[in-house]
């Protein structure tokens, strides 16, 4: 396959997926979709309603992805969670705290948290210090997040974004405080660590379902359906390729 054919194929997939996404978003605006239960996201919803009642706060960490790399998508999924949880919990005595390990990501987290705050609590001033950059390398970032987990009356930690295996230090810090952790990463080593250290680990593409499961809008639900459709195409292509190869045609 030449690079031009690959390019055309790539743009074809993007256009196909984009059209499907737009169409399904419009379609499901009226009749919402229902998905299988994912325990971790049920816990997130429960935690959000609890912080308003018991005067604790949520901690949301979206990792240290560079916005110029593909790992930024996991951080964008984390931003959708910040937006939703920010709106739900901004009226509580202790608004949520977000931590990031990337400067550009921190600006986005600040802006998202501020937008969520202004959507519900226009009377109170928003404190920019609720969105924090804790370090610029993966380990310094983790080292900076640990005191927040320990000292700030955190009731639940939501870690969704690009983390490496060092995320194990965060889950351990949360475990010492006996606060639950809901965590997902796009990195395979981090997923292995989270599988061992959290109660309900989110594996693979479940990370990108955050918006759909926290009712962020029909676009998020539609994107899950588009993922499923594309996955079936990939499965058919893999099986078809294997059959053709066995038949000696490829």
């Amino acid at each position, binding site marked *: 396959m030449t690079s031009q054919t690959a390019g055309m194929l790539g743009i074809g997939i993007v256009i196909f997926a984009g059209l499907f996404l737009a169409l399904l978003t419009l379609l499901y605006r009226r009749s919402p979709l229902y998905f299988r239960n994912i325990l971790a996201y049920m816990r997130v919803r429960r935690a959000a309603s609890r912080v308003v009642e018991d005067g604790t706060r949520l901690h949301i960490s979206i990792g240290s992805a560079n916005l110029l790399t593909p790992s930024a998508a996991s951080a964008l999924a984390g931003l959708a969670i910040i937006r939703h949880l920010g709106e739900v919990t901004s009226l509580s005595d202790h608004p949520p705290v977000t931590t990031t390990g990337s400067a550009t990501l*921190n600006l986005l987290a600040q802006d998202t948290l501020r937008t969520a705050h202004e959507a519900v609590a226009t009377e109170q001033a928003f404190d920019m210090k609720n969105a924090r950059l804790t370090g610029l390398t993966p380990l310094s970032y983790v080292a900076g997040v640990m005191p927040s987990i320990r000292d700030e009356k955190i009731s639940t930690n939501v870690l969704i974004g690009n983390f490496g295996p060092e995320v194990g230090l965060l889950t351990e810090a949360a475990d010492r405080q006996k606060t639950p952790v809901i965590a997902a990463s796009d990195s395979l080593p981090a997923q292995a660590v989270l599988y061992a250290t959290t109660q309900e680990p989110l594996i693979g593409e479940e990370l990108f379902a955050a918006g759909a499961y926290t009712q962020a809008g029909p676009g*998020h639900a539609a994107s899950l359906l588009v993922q499923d459709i594309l996955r079936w195409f990939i499965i058919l292509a893999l099986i078809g390729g294997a059959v053709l190869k066995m038949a000696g045609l490829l």
Partner: protein
Amino acid sequence: MRRIFPIINAVIAIGAGLSVLIGYFVDVRGMTEFRLLLFQWAVVVGGVAVLVGVWNLFSVHLQKIRAKQPGSIYSLILLFFLLLTLFLLIFPLLLQNLVSDDPTQANTVSAANAILLDGIIIPVEVSLMAVLSVTLIVAAIRMLRTRTDLPAILFLATAFVALLGIGLRSFLGQIPVLSDLAQSQLVMNILALGGARGILIGVALGTLTTGLRILLGIDRPYGGE
């Protein structure tokens, strides 16, 4: 204006995103140069964002010290070393560029850099990695108590085989059955690679739809409704 700004933001973000995407797939004259120009701007904005981020870090810890919050002594140490690093690395560079033509100034900067990097940052990060490895072993043992389903047992058995069969090979040498099993075609190329590819395909599809949501203006991480 409060309504117009989000629309302008969305138009700029979607336009830039589409230009980069088209430039990535199709080699249209002028599009590649435009894509690189956008990347250069993004790098400059990223550099400025680091300064804003450092100010954020500084102000958060200053507030902690003022409010005498628990652990504020660590904030004090952090601010001291933040300012020391700025003083040691930035001011000599500024002096070198603005005032002096003396090449020994550059040596002073690299010596300070070496002390900070080799003497503080690397040892501290290596120590954290050591703590992490102990933490993971404890977590694996704890997992045996909290979760005893089949996936958990398979996970731990695989970790055990990989650790003894490959990870500790330089200390223990080849362990007859475990090393052969860990390096076997079945484990390495079929089970591990197949599983990893499955997860990565899921992540790639999630990445694609997340990008599309931004290109369609459904998600706006740059603020606004």
